[in-house]
């Protein structure tokens, strides 16, 4: 019998790529008021920082993403999650731009999170890890840029939760952002999205192996709970037409319904089970709890006294927003709210709604219109900066 693969929290220190110890190992103040430290960030870079130090593109990953946007993923062995967008000659052109992609705060691929060691106890944090926010993630990224000696980035770009970070970046550090590209995002998490996240969290916490969040020391893993959370969430990333096109009512390896209980009769069931099973190999259940919570708390409008336009006072950044017609998780209406607020604030903003039946996940997939608009936009930013 082969041994089960090692858990994510056991391998995170062995993953390839640089780590940065922030603020010289001092504690970082979180939005909750708590202090967390020392904070370590795992990140990847591609391309070369130019002499003017103004060609950096900062990529913010989504909920279950990580720093491996480009190149072979060290855990799954698959291609990077944004290889369609990042690489030589791609819209985020690593031949021209210096690309930085950090693992977010609370993540489980080497950046400080619930699966990291709490220096106070010498044990992994588990649920003693403080609650974090999108703003905390952004502050930590800003400290990483300080560490790398980069004052200003030519672009902050990301989809979904990455888009939330992009918006927060532009609002929080208006002087450090030349352009902002939030894709399939929103200025706040909707009630429906919070509801879906709650289903995922309840699935994890209902798994007896979760052990109140301290499964590390019990040598257990709440894999069932985490995989159910992933299965439920994965449906929200797709669309009804995409599911129908891909699976219809096709049966899995059989000609007729089995009438044998609850195995995966349908292909769509088998697909979801596979999504759940492969996810637990690369993601930590507590990280999932903390990051979904951070997304739920995000509300840039409330942070600015109920007027989103106030978030953009002082920004000189140019914006490009993109949404997808079939995305019901972060629908076009959410992007438009942001666009309206930017118009009200007199910001230079472009907006595109791309026709696609692939749902929210379209931002990760082959969408020629997305590539064309994004590369045109980044080209024009680079031209304005003189390279």
């Amino acid at each position: 019998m082969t041994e089960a693969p090692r858990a994510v929290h056991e391998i995170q220190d062995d993953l390839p790529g640089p780590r940065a110890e922030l603020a010289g190992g001092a504690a970082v103040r979180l939005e909750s008021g708590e202090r967390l430290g020392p904070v370590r960030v795992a990140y990847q870079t591609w391309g070369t920082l130019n002499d003017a130090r103004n060609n950096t593109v900062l990529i913010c990953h989504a909920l279950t993403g990580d720093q491996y946007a480009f190149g072979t993923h060290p855990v799954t062995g698959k291609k990077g999650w944004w290889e369609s967008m990042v690489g030589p000659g791609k819209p985020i052109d690593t031949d021209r731009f210096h690309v930085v992609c950090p693992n977010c705060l609370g993540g489980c691929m080497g950046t400080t999170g619930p699966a990291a060691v709490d220096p106070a106890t010498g044990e992994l944090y588990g649920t003693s890890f403080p609650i974090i926010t999108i703003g905390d993630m952004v502050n930590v990224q800003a400290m990483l840029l300080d560490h790398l000696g980069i004052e200003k980035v030519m672009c902050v770009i990301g989809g979904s939760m990455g888009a939330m970070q992009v918006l927060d970046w532009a609002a929080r550090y208006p002087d450090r952002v030349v352009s902002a590209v939030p894709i399939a995002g929103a200025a706040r998490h909707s009630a429906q999205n919070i509801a879906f996240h709650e289903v995922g969290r309840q699935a994890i916490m209902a798994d007896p192996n979760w052990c109140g969040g301290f499964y590390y020391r019990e040598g257990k893993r709440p894999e069932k709970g985490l995989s159910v959370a992933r299965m439920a969430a994965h449906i929200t990333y797709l669309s009804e037409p995409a599911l129908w096109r891909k699976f219809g009512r096709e049966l899995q390896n059989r000609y007729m319904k089995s009438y044998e209980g609850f195995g995966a009769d349908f292909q769509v069931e088998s697909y979801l089970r596979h999504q759940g099973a492969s996810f637990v190999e690369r993601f930590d259940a507590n990280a999932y709890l903390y990051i979904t919570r951070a997304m739920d708390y995000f509300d840039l409008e409330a942070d600015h006294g109920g007027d989103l336009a106030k978030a953009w006072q002082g920004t000189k950044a140019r914006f490009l927003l993109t949404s997808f017609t079939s995305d019901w998780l972060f629908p076009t209406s959410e992007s438009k709210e942001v666009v309206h607020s930017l118009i009200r604030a007199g910001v230079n903003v472009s907006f595109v709604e791309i026709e696609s039946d692939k749902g929210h996940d379209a931002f990760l997939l082959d969408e020629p219109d997305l590539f064309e608009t994004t590369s045109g936009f980044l080209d024009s930013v680079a031209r304005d900066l003189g390279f």
Partner: protein
Amino acid sequence: MSLLAGARDRFILGENRFGLRPDLGLVASMIEPESRLLDVGCDDGALLDYLVRELGCDGRGMEISQAGVNACVARGLPVIQGDADRHLVDYPDDSFDYVILSHTLQAVHRPGEVLRQMMRIADVAIVSILNFGHWRARLSLVTRGRMPHTRFIPEPWFMTSTIRPCTVRDFLDLVRLEGLLTGDCYGIAKEREVTVIRSGFEGQANLFAEQAVFEVLPAKKRKPGRRS
């Protein structure tokens, strides 16, 4: 330098070194440098690009087609994908000095409402139309018994984006109905022969202009001065 240097009542639109289509060159000549403007239906951004780069305007665009939006974004122009019928309401009052609607008013469902929205968000609207009152269009309808299909109306009725065909007189009626005024107005024939449309001579323009460009002004406001 104005693109219409030495303009009289009749003149020919010259080539301009920016490769702008002649009628867009005429529109550009009606815009004060360094003004704030919105180009609705900005297509590939050719006019907007000229206004931003050469006249130093703070220009924004709205365009319905993906290809047009992509072209604008690649030029570095701020453009929102949207259409005049639904998305002008998104702009606050008095956001702009000018709003430009070239060859777009006849492609919207509610031209009156679009005109009202334009006057709400800007001081001045520059509107260009195809003139279905041109004698060829009239002749085509009378002799052939079919919708006008001429050099300047190249597509058959079921293909054209001009879902609201109108004449110079029709447009001026709408302007009056909305309680608005017109400033400078021009008729264009053969793509570059321009005639200034004087008050009382609209009938002539209605017969001989293939296209027309109007400066639409609110009833009581004066034209904006040049912003320094």
